C-alpha cells in the first residue's frame, strides 16, 4: 500500500478513536492538561509514522502504544518539571457526574475511585476493564509480565472495594 493511502487510513480512523485516546492519555498522565497535550502529540506522531501502520490492525491499540512510549520517553519529564503531571489526587479536575443519578456512594467518589489509583494500576485497569484487553494483551501493550497485570488489577479492585466499603459505612453514619 502506498504511503499516502496509509496516511489516509490513519487520518480517517483517528476521529472515531480520539476520545478513547484522550481518556487513555489522561489516565496515563493523571491530569487533563498533560493528557490532552499527550493525545495531541500522539496524533502528530501517528501521522508522521503512518507508513508503519498495518491497515486492518487495531488503530486504537497502535495509538495507545505510541502514546505510552511518548509519555515515558518525553512528555512525562516535561510534565513533572512543569508541575502539571502526576499531581496529588485531590487536585485532579475530573468531571462531575450526571446529576440525579442515585449511587450508593457519594457521587464524587465515582471519579475518585479512578483518580485515587496509582498510575500503573489506573492504566492497567483501563485497558483490561474498559478497553477489553486480555491480561496477555495488556502485558504486551504495557511491556510488563502477565503476573504484573494480574496483581495490578487485583490491587486496583481491592483498593476500590475498600474505599466503597468505607464510603458506605460513612454514609450510614451520616444518615
Amino acid at each position, binding site marked *: 500500500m502506498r504511503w499516502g493511502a496509509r496516511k489516509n487510513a490513519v487520518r480517517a480512523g483517528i476521529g472515531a478513536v480520539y476520545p478513547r485516546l*484522550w481518556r487513555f492519555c489522561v489516565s496515563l498522565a493523571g491530569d487533563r492538561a498533560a493528557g490532552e497535550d499527550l493525545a495531541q502529540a500522539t496524533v*502528530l506522531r501517528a501521522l508522521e509514522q503512518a507508513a508503519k501502520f498495518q491497515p486492518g490492525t487495531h488503530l486504537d491499540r497502535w495509538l495507545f502504544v505510541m502514546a505510552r512510549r511518548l509519555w515515558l520517553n518525553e512528555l512525562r519529564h516535561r510534565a513533572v518539571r512543569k508541575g502539571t503531571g502526576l499531581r496529588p489526587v485531590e487536585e485532579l479536575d475530573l468531571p462531575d457526574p450526571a446529576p440525579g443519578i442515585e449511587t450508593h456512594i457519594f457521587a464524587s467518589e465515582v471519579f475518585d475511585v479512578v483518580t485515587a489509583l496509582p498510575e500503573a494500576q489506573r492504566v492497567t*485497569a483501563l485497558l*483490561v476493564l474498559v478497553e477489553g484487553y486480555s491480561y496477555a494483551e495488556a502485558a504486551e501493550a504495557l511491556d510488563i509480565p502477565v503476573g504484573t497485570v*494480574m496483581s495490578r488489577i487485583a490491587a486496583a479492585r481491592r483498593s476500590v472495594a475498600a474505599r466503597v466499603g468505607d464510603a458506605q459505612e460513612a454514609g450510614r453514619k451520616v444518615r
Partner: protein
Amino acid sequence: MVERFTDEEISAFLDGEADPALAVRIAAARDADPDFAADLAAMEAAGAHLVAGFDALMADAPDAPDLSPAAGRIAWRGMAAGFAAGIAVAAIAGAGWLYSRPPAWERYVAAYQALYVPATVAGADLTPDAARARIAELAPELGIDLSALPDLPGLNLRRAQMLGHDGQPLLQIAYADAEGRPVALCIIARAGGASAPVMREMEGLPAVAWATDAHAFLLIGGTAETVQKAAKVARAAL
C-alpha cells in the same frame, strides 16, 4: 473446609482469565461461603465502579482534531463543553459507541438477542394485557415492582419470560419495534450499585445498560435511536 483465594485469583475469575479448574473452585466456594460470596461481589462491584469512573471521563473528551487535508494544518478545537453524562456520552464517542467491557450477563443476553429475527417476536401470541399480567407475575422473583413500567415509545410489547444467568433469574420483556425488529428489556437483580446509562454496540445490536442499587437493566435490539428513547422512558419510570 472453606478454601481461600488470593485477590489475583479472584480478579482473574472476574475477568474471565481464571483457568477452568480455578473457576470451578471459586464458584463452589461462592456457593458454600456467604462471606466469600460477599467479598467476591464487592470485588466485582469495585470493577464496575472503575468502569463507571472511566466512562464518565469520556463525557468530557474533546472533539477529535480536524485532520482533513483541506484543513491545511491541524486545527485543534479545544475541549468540548462540559457534556452532561448519560446517554449523550455515546454521541461524542466517535462512531457512537463506548468500548467498555460489558458484564457477563449482558454479553450472554446480547448473544441470545442476536439470534432473534422479526419472526421470533411476531409469533408471540400474548395480547399486551396478557403480557403485562405476565410481567406482574414474574417481577416479584427479581424483587422488583414493574407496575410503573410504561409503554415504551416506538415499541410494542410482545411477551415476558423468565430466563436465568448463573443461577439468577433474568426477566426478559420482549418488544417489536415499528418495523417488527425484536427488542428486549432484560432485568437482573444485582447489587452492584447504581450506574448511569451506557450505550454500546453488542453483537451488532444497539444496547443501553444502566443500573439501580438493586437491579441492572439492558435494553437491546432494533435501532440506536429507538433504544435510546425507550431506555430514557424506562429508566425514568423504574
